């Protein structure tokens, strides 16, 4: 079985590294990181990841804007997106879902269980 490609987008280098390490705990995952929304749009179209983890608050192009960019491109329109955000209120989660995201992982996340959480999300997506 080939590795599951996951694209992670966050403007904070430290968080990119921690997510990389956390997801690396699951050897099935192949992770690529992007530092901005623009970068993510290009990478997603080229690399066709199976899942995108997207930070909400980023300078210039924020998460929701990036998501709408992904949805506009036929190459990336179907890629599932999970937002990563601090303090996700139920109402905000509903808003993100309405924007076309498949779910939300709240920050700070538990690095030891992040891979497990992502796996669960992927399985839930597969069932639908």
């Amino acid at each position, binding site marked *: 079985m080939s590795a599951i490609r996951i694209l992670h987008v966050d403007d*904070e280098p*430290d*968080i990119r590294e*921690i997510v990389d*390490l*956390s997801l690396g*705990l699951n050897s099935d995952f192949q992770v690529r990181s992007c530092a901005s929304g623009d970068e993510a749009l290009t990478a997603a179209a080229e690399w066709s990841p199976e899942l995108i983890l997207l930070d909400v*608050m980023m300078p210039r192009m924020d998460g929701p804007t990036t998501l709408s960019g992904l949805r506009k491109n036929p190459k990336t329109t179907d890629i599932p997106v999970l937002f990563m955000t*601090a*303090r996700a*209120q*139920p*109402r905000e989660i*509903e*808003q993100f879902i309405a924007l076309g995201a498949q779910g939300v992982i709240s*920050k*700070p*996340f*538990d*690095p*030891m269980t992040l891979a497990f959480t992502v796996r669960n999300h992927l399985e839930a997506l597969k069932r639908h």
Partner: protein
Amino acid sequence: MGTVVDIVNTARDRSAEKLVDEKFRLVVEACPSGMVMTDTAGTIVLTNTATERMFGYPRDQLLGRQVEILIPERLRGESLKQRAAFALNPQTRRVEANRELLGLRHDGTEFPVEVWLNPIQAHDGLFVLSVVVDVSERKRMDRLKDEFVSTVSHELRTPLTSISGSLGLLLGGAAGTLPDGAVRLLSIAHSNSKRLVRLINDILDIEKIESGQVVLNFRRIDVRALAEQVIEANRAYADGFGVTVRLDADSQAVDVSADPDRLAQVVTNLLSNAIKFSPQGGEVVVATEQHGDLIRISVRDHGNGIPAEFKPRVFEKFAQADATDARQKTGTGLGLSIVEQIVTRLGGRVSFDDADGGGTVFCVDLPSWMQIAKREIDKGRTADAIRILLCEGDPEGAMALREGLRPLGFSADFAHDPEAAIARARTSSYAAILVNLEPADADGIGLIRRLREQPAIYNTPIVIISGDRVDAKEEASKLNVFKWVGTPVDTYELAQVLDGALVRGERRQPRILHVDDDPAMRDLVTFALEPLASVVSVGSVDEARGAVLKQQFDLAVLDIALGPISGLELLPELRNGKGRPIPVIIFSAHPPELAPNPQVRARLTKSRASLDELVAAIHDRLMLKSSVSREEVA
């Protein structure tokens, strides 16, 4: 001799009086607050330098004028009411309004003010001294503080995510096995980083609640079910402390009207507090019950109880009975303060008491859903009041609006959710319907769409109450919404809007001309369209010409085969007073191919198109038209 002394004394008294007068005058002039004295009719009789400076008027332009020139026009009605109320009960007090008070400068600009009213009983009658303070700077500082707290909290959270993430990875063995000593130190760092996150979250929460940014989404909630969910969600946490949590077996399934997320947060905070302060092996009991019109949720622990000297400060921010103890318990000192703020916003009360047999019981009392529902019909309605329906989830807000509108001649019934709104609108006749679009996820637009589907409500003016829902504007424009009123609602302004809606509403039943030579078809169409509009039905071209001369029409439904004459001949003559063409829907057995003609809005074939389709086409047409005319009005 005595007379001379008297005269001298009197002269001395007078000059002393003068001196005192002069001193008082100087005091008034030196006062940094604006002072405006008016008679009971509102005429300015005295003012000071600060007022001149604040409002930009020279004194001679103020004296003798009505005090209302210092108030923006839209708030003057409110001010008149305040003045009338003050005359009935002249006592020193601050002007309380359900919205920000504003002053109007000479140059037309506005600024936020605080106003105190003081009665002055002089020998020639009652006067009112208004003391006016310009609070623009204070408001600006408040806003800056809010922004600062919110920015700092967000900025703090990003590095914290990295710190707690790294520590978590190290402790989880991601970088290999660590010596025991390192694990202990890292655990301390890790648990404290998590505590910092909780603290920041609580600060942000309280900031949001205090600044009114938390929008409450009231729903009908079964409190026992909610308590069960919260208990389940916190079971693991309780296990960590070796504490058991259970729902009292006698708990009643009773309903309240509240925001489910926020009420769950209240119960969670009380529960986690109770767990933290329970001894190992202790038990926490949650119970729900009805006390008359109130629903009580109680959380009882078997801890050491709250020390008497700490009781008055329990709900204060960062208040902790014993700092060392609290640190052990990893509290932020904000949980109960958040509880109190939310419960107050939900229209309830939180209290605590020593429990029988030791420990503490915290109680949250909320008005029962039944009590809220009973209040929805305005029982204080007078016979001549204009009945309106207010679709508003927040009962407190609805009550305030009802009371504000009552003296202005309106009687407001409420509907707390879409089902109630539709049921009420169908069974009672309302002159207008107000829909509050806050909170954003309550789908007020969906409600309006559903209301508009009811034939009886098709023409009822709908007014939207909303902060700033630009996203909804386009949608609403298709639904024949009369006007938008901003929040916080100014009842006086709202009453004016309603008056406008009602006047226009009387002539707003759209009028449709139906031309068809088949009497059976005329009856059918009239029957089908009656709920939407008043229909004038004619059987010939001549009758149609006559009808157009007599009346204005919003739309014409035209058959083509009218005996020997083609209905198309009528098209150029179907014009309203100013020569504006009446939009036409052709409804005919054989609609002809036509050159593009902007007057013809739709062509429907009788045999294929059902009456429903005709009604739908007309419905769309009238709605679009009304939304256009609304914009013209605005």
